[in-house]
């Protein structure tokens, strides 16, 4: 049987087509991008490739290009001029063959010669590692409690974890100065309670540095852990109990190993920014604290030695890339076994 044709159906259809094609014509950005890509010789580009191209372009422009510039500066020689470093290439004569490559690996060697840099690196890694461990010890029970809380409460509890982000990072660190200083909130409270009889020096100590880092980066630990623990199949724990496993043992042999991806993700999110952290040790830590972020700042702004500062930055990157690659391979192996 033929489908019944509604009166005026074809007109309506035609109008819809016109509306749609009109809408397509009103999309200049898409057409512009397409035209650009065609002109660049990227033919046969399908939607999928185009979508993937956007983040790659972003990374190329805002990560790779600056990185190459920093890398270039790190191999040049400092000079008192504008910009404060010598170009890598310079012409000794007029001919093309007169190009001289002026590569100076001395900046990197210098990092090893002056023990300041190595000590700063070691200290930063130690501070970051201890802060990460503390954040894990505090963040895991927190994430666990939220993930196992009643579904109605989860969103609210999670909100409480994220809420501090609504205030500026700098303001939150400054607030800790107000809390920790000699006549600050905490000392006054302890004096009033009679726990202490004279103010304790807390500000500009290592304690304050750790406190600041753990406080600021705790949400980065809680979030991936929560995401992992929340999606865990609870029948696994019941299965373990059913097979004679007590709850604590079930946590150790089931929950903990299954939450490894969350632990790794959380630790990396805390560890990596903590190594290069500048603001927190500068504001809360001791004046003579040796953190690589502070050294970088001093080289760049106080000594105006851009090449050495760049070398420090590149070395920091290398120090951080190593554990990332290691953990990614670890996770790749874990997920590779699953396919």
């Amino acid at each position, binding site marked *: 049987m033929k489908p019944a044709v509604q009166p005026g159906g074809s007109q309506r259809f035609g109008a819809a087509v016109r509306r749609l094609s009109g809408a397509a014509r009103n999309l200049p950005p898409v057409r512009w991008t397409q035209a650009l890509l065609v002109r660049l010789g990227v033919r046969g580009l399908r939607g999928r490739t185009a979508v993937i191209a956007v983040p790659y372009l972003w990374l190329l422009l805002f990560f790779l290009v600056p990185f190459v510039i920093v890398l270039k500066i790190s191999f040049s020689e400092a000079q008192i001029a504008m910009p404060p470093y010598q170009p890598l290439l310079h012409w000794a004569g007029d001919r093309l063959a007169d190009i001289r490559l002026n590569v100076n690996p001395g900046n990197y060697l210098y990092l090893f010669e002056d023990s300041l840099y190595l000590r700063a690196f070691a200290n930063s890694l130690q501070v970051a590692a201890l802060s990460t461990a503390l954040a894990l010890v505090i963040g895991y029970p927190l994430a666990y409690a939220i993930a196992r809380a009643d579904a109605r409460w989860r969103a609210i509890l999670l909100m409480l974890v994220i809420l501090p982000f609504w205030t500026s990072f700098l303001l939150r660190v400054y607030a800790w100065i107000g809390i920790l200083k000699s006549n600050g909130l905490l000392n006054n409270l302890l004096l009033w309670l009679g726990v202490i009889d004279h103010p304790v020096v807390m500000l500009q100590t290592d304690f304050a540095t750790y406190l600041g880092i753990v406080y600021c980066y705790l949400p980065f630990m809680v979030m991936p852990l929560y995401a992992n623990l929340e999606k865990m199949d609870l029948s696994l724990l*019941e*299965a*373990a109990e059913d097979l*004679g496993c*007590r709850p604590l043992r079930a946590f150790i042999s089931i929950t903990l190993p299954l939450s490894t991806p969350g632990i790794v993700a959380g630790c990396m999110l805390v560890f990596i920014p903590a190594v290069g952290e500048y603001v927190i040790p500068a504001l809360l830590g001791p004046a003579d604290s040796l953190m690589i972020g502070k050294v970088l700042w001093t080289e760049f702004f106080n000594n105006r030695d851009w090449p050495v500062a760049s070398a420090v930055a590149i070395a920091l990157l290398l120090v951080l890339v190593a554990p990332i690659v290691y953990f990614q391979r670890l996770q790749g192996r874990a997920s590779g*076994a*699953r396919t």
Partner: protein
Amino acid sequence: MAASEVASPGVRQPWNDPAARPYIRLERVTKSFADFVAVNEVSLNIFQGELFCLLGGSGCGKTTLLRMLAGFEEPSSGRIFIDGLDMSGIPPYERPVNMMFQSYALFPHMSVEQNVGFGLKMEHRSRSEIADRVAQMLKLVRLAELGQRKPDQLSGGQRQRVALARALIKQPKLLLLDEPLAALDKKLREHTQFELVNLQEQLGVTFVVVTHDQEEAMTLSSRIGVMERGRIVQVGTPKEIYEFPGNRFVAEFIGSVNMFEGQQTADDEGLLRIACPELERPVQVANGIASAPAARVWVAIRPEKIQLSLTPPQAAANWTQGQVKEIAYLGDLSVYLIRLASGKTIRVTRPNVRRCDDQDITWEQEVFLHWHDSSPVLVGA
């Protein structure tokens, strides 16, 4: 009564033996969540070596009942005894019970061997004993070659067997199975049903199986407990449940059935005569229990117990006529939907004994339906 009629001699039936001691005893067990009563005053005896199926639709409380046996839920009231011991307050890890989960709940970070050996590891058995018993168990479920694999490298059927092996390794006296075959496809399910029964007989373990699939329950069980809205409405062997359903719900839930409302008009020597407004002639029931003459009763007739013919039968009762409205060819049998003069549609199934034997009855044809005195069953509302 009905039960004794179908009891076949030689088959062990501890539930008919008043001296037998039940292995599991539920005494008026109730479980309520907030204002919802999941399990309502269930009393039940299950005997050693039985394969007992809890059958019911979703939300009937069968899984809650199973979880109470495993210890994951505590009854709100009532008591559960396993092997004579009161189970109240005893956590799952101290019960002599193992469970196979519907999702299988295999530990994804452990190999098949580690999964199966988990229960023994918790008992602090020696490494060599664990290895031996795991190998033995994997051989039993025919997975000996796959011991090193992770659960996500297995097929659905293999996972099911790992879950079974893991639940059986501690040699429990009672194994609880929550929809053990639901995740398998039809062919594999039929095959696994028989495997499960064989394994149960071989090991002599008491199985309590939860299922929503009546076919599965019929194939597997020694007895079935049919559940509806938190209550057990009937307990019996598959045959009892099918041939002598206790009420309308059971009759309609197990298999398909034609149901007629009626009133008892006569009772001569065990042959009841029921007048059904939807049928022109009275129904004679050979094995019904007489009710008060004016009481409303329901007559249930299974589709396979009705015969079709093109000539009117020579009888005063137990037949009617109608028009063929629909024929569904299912291969092994055909389903006929026949509309009576009263407007009621009746379902009749006929086995396809001969190949391509569909010439005699076709669409829109007037046919006669008749059945034997023993075919109809009277059920309560």
